[in-house]
């Protein structure tokens, strides 16, 4: 049956593509390490209530008899000033960080992509001017400052933190996609689609967007690390995850007040942040290699 053969051929081509991409990605051992660490962190965060030694310590738990203990076998990373296990709280803290990444990227990225596509396609019209000037305005202050100010005005909590960080994140994607779209607008395949009479949605989503995927995916992985830093920064200042919830930034702020005696309450959450960001960066580098080779 020709249909079946066609299907088999298509599938095996897809499999080859995947293997080729995987080969380019996995040439750099750091990318593999990053990927494994990320998977472990995601898994640990998802299963936090089941795998952490003291899940009840994630909230407003106190046990002053075991307060401020240094790292030991019963408490890997020690306990904080009210007797909560720092290791447990870090794993729970990852939940807030990763959740923030997912929310910010899934709100900010599609919005930025759509605006960038539209602005790029309608270059030199009022639509482009309106969208790109608004983008400029959002990019006229460092994202951290704008996120801080907006969260502060809205009153600090987790939900507002997510809203504020998403609000400052989309302009980067609209600018990125805008630049690619303007460069592709005059290409033959877009012109031809227009001549055939394809709809604007088809042209933007099926012809232009696939050419942006590589840049978007790479940027998203690198941005995941940045979102975690911005989220932890907000929490560190007191404008994010509020105690007794275990935000990584919140825990560091708390530990910083007890330096140098209870160093472990600040140092381990800080290391936890560094590790997850490094992992995202390594994976991002791997994706970059993967797509860079393909373009050649």
């Amino acid at each position, binding site marked *: 049956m020709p249909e079946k053969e066609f299907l088999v051929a298509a599938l095996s081509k897809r499999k080859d593509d995947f293997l080729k991409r995987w080969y380019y990605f996995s040439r750099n051992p750091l990318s593999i390490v990053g990927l494994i660490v990320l998977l472990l962190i995601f898994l640990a965060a998802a299963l936090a209530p089941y795998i952490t030694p003291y899940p009840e310590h994630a909230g407003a738990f106190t046990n002053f008899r075991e307060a401020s203990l240094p790292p030991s076998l019963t408490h890997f990373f020690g306990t904080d000033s009210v007797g909560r296990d720092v290791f447990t709280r870090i794993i729970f803290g990852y939940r807030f960080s990763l959740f923030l990444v997912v929310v910010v990227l899934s709100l900010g990225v599609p919005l930025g992509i759509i605006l960038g596509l539209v602005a790029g396609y309608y270059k030199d019209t009022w639509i482009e001017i309106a969208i790109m000037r608004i983008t400029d305005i959002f990019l006229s202050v*460092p994202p951290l400052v704008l996120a801080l100010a907006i969260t502060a005005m809205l009153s600090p909590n987790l939900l507002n933190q997510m809203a504020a960080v998403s609000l400052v994140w989309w302009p980067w994607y609209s600018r990125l996609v805008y630049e690619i779209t303007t460069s592709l607008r005059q290409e033959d395949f877009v012109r031809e689609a227009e001549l055939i009479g394809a709809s604007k949605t088809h042209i933007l989503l099926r012809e232009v967007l696939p050419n942006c995927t590589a840049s978007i995916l790479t940027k998203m992985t690198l941005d995941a690390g940045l979102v975690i830093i911005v989220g932890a920064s907000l929490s560190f200042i007191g404008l994010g995850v509020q105690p007794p919830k275990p935000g990584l930034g919140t825990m560091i702020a708390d530990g910083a007040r007890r330096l140098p005696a209870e*160093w472990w309450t600040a*140092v381990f959450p800080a290391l936890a942040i560094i590790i997850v960001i490094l992992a995202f960066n390594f994976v991002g580098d791997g994706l970059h290699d993967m797509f860079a080779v393909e373009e050649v």
Partner: protein
Amino acid sequence: MGKYIGLRVLQSLFVLFGLSLLIFSASRVIPGDPARVALGPLATEEQVQELREEMHLDKPFLVQYYFWFTSVLRGDLGESLYTRRPVVTDLKRFIPATLELIVFAFLLSLIIGQTIGILAGHFRDSWFDGLSRLISYIGIATPPFALGIFLLLIFSYILNLMPSVGRLSLGLRSSPQITGFLIFDSLITGHLDVAWEAFKHIILPAISLTAANLAQESRITRSSIVENQQKDYITAHIVYGIPTRSIIFKYLLKPSFIPTVSIMGLDIAYLLGNAFLVEVVFMWPGFSRYGVTVMLNKDLNAIIAVVLVIGVAFSVVNLIVDIVVSFLDPRIRLQRKGG
């Protein structure tokens, strides 16, 4: 060139106007009554009503914005509802400390980043190159406040080498204020001890503030050195027998400097933003810590002012960077003349 600069200035003014509209409307759509928030739960209804009228909160949004905008043009940013002083007075008092920190951090990243980049590019694939790569990975992945805590712990508490917080140790008399830059002021007035103290205090915050920039700059310089080293004109110079040192400093450094300058705008943005974290860690009595304090206290007038100051600073920096790059890079300069 003049036309280009004029256009860029107009563009910046438009963006700043938009920013003011954005941040002002954000401050007015928030849930709750700004006047009530400012005065606290103990104030009487009359007091709140009075403040409401003073802040024009009883008028439509555009009227409020008009009143606010015209007073900003007169140089009046309103009164801080937290410190009870005019916001402009507060800003004047706190900005120099932050400016000193940022300028110092910027110079640090420029000098050290370039040096590491040149060495790593020249001795590429050596142990030094590997080490610099490792350090730059860590520098980029470490949030500035976490780095600040590590540095404090190691250099102030464990090794006892550095002072921990503030701009000067307690009890030390400050030199007369001229520019507000402590190191500079005390140097030109001859207070060497104060200058040394101030220098020791600024080192750790500056490093935590700029580590990521430093890391990135060294990588960029390295790769552009490596890239340019393979070009024909460098091979030609080597064949002519020109000494390596003058090849590096005369012919390699200049083209390698252009990408560094072009990302300076982003570098400064990073410093402006992260000063908010570093100043909290090191209790640096500057503008950004003032910003954090007013944010935590929901002091709307001051928050708006802080964001606007950052916006203005960032626009000016970007303007300067664009102009400098177009002077440095003949390709951009000539292209603009032609087009």
